[in-house]
């Protein structure tokens, strides 16, 4: 991979700094992702997950997808992870290491992860093949909203209904009376 990178470095279209940045962020993300499942403390696991999600946001920025990156920070770090930590701290959050955090069927996760990884890799390689994607300016947000609110309006509304149903379902399950 480094060989290809250097070979393309002479090509004006390839932004070397961006590729190096991608590599560094990806390394941090992989390390953090493994730590999420290996650490012996629930809160530490949640914090490593924050690192992974922040890495995703950083990758979006590198890919010139500002709006998606900011949404990632807002939804995942600002809301989901805060709720995660909030929930963990309200229920069980010991300081120090804790045993028995692993699920009995944790080995099953390995093939699932590999299949997902292969599927995503196949889709990406199949779509872009060996295109060189050069520098580009961020896509204007109007473009994004126009796409979502005209051709993809029906799937968009469908997804929001699913989320609404999930939210109501959670309340129904949580309320005893």
């Amino acid at each position, binding site marked *: 991979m480094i060989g290809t990178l250097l070979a393309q470095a002479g090509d004006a279209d390839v932004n070397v700094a961006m590729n190096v940045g991608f590599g560094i962020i990806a390394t941090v993300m992989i390390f953090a992702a493994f730590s999420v499942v290996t650490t012996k*403390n629930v*809160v*530490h696991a949640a*914090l490593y997950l*924050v690192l992974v999600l922040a890495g995703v946001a950083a990758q979006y920025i590198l890919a010139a997808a*500002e*709006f998606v990156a*900011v*949404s990632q*920070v*807002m939804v995942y*770090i*600002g*809301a989901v*992870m*805060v*709720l995660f*930590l*909030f929930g963990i*701290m*309200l229920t069980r*959050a010991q*300081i*120090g290491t804790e045993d028995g955090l692993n699920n009995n069927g944790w080995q099953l996760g390995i093939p699932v992860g590999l299949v997902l990884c292969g599927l995503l890799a196949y889709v990406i390689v199949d779509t872009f093949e060996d295109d060189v994607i050069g520098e580009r300016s*961020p896509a*204007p*947000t109007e473009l994004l909203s126009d796409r979502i609110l005209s051709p993809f309006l029906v799937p968009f509304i469908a997804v929001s209904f699913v989320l609404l149903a999930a939210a109501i379902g959670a309340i129904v399950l949580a309320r005893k009376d």
Partner: protein
Amino acid sequence: MLAQISAAFLAVDGYFPDDWPDWSIPYWLMSILRVVGGLVAVLLPAGGIVYLFLFKMMSFMQSRLGPMEAGPYGSMQLLAEVGKWMQKEDLAPDNADVRIYRMAPLIVLVSTFLLIVVVPFGPRAFFTNFETGIFYALAVGSVSVLGILIAGWSSANKYSLLGGLRAGGQLIAYELPMVLATLGVVIQAESMNLNRIIEVQNTGEIFGIGWIGNPFIITQFVGFLIFMIAVQAELTQAPFDMPIAESELVSGYMTEYSGFRFLIFFIAEFATAGVFSFIAAALFLGGWGVPFEWFGWDNLGEVAWWMNLVGPVIMFTKMFALVGVIMWVRFSYPRFREDQLQTFAWKVLIPLALANTAVTAILKVLL
């Protein structure tokens, strides 16, 4: 020199209108100047707010003089306080999760520094001209909750944990009305870019009269009120200071912190007040601009270069005025009860903000 310093804020893309002085400086120098500019834009308001409002205004409201010994009118008191905190030992409780405990205040401070990045101080005086500026600010502003939550948890102290949880619940509840209140502005300005929002306000007209522009505080008054209330709560300033309620929780999530880590929390609290006021000034008060009609400018491209020097002064003035209001409320009202706080957010502010958004959207389409 002044030109060089103000050039720190200029964009990297090398675009300068012809009638502007030539301010091209190397990229590395620009980067250094930007870092210095960011430090000034965060720490100067923080210091100013603490001295002007916390030391002096509060004292006058309580019929006392406040600090008078260090320097003229006690103006050197800040340095004395910082010096005092820096000397103190950096303590951590025995049972604390030390690594996270030490990290927590830094997360809070970093989120403040990340916020200032999108605030424009003049037509070209910004750190970055982010397309989704206001959305970015709201997203990054919510990261500080993480720092507060883990500060409360890692202290291994009941009061700290309770304070952290209260802060978490409060910040989640008040983030929603804040986001919804800015939606009205975004709908009216048709952009999330803060510089564009400022341009729209200063070129706007109210019933064909353009000499005061169209600051959104007039058309979005409800949004402005909701935004300022939400800011008050996000900053955990009284009457929303349950997370650090000293009579119940000692000092909430900050109980165990001492020395410079407490100082960092303290600075972050007032620096964030400054930065949120900058953002409120940009959203509702016309930001760095004067109505463009006064000088015959039609759009952002025609604004004279000296606005890059006057703009920051205007921004700082508006910021101090808004922080003045925040502090005035803080010193005047007693603390809410925890359930009143949540009820107020979910049953009053959020429906009101939703209604405001809906009305703005309908009017936008009709007019």
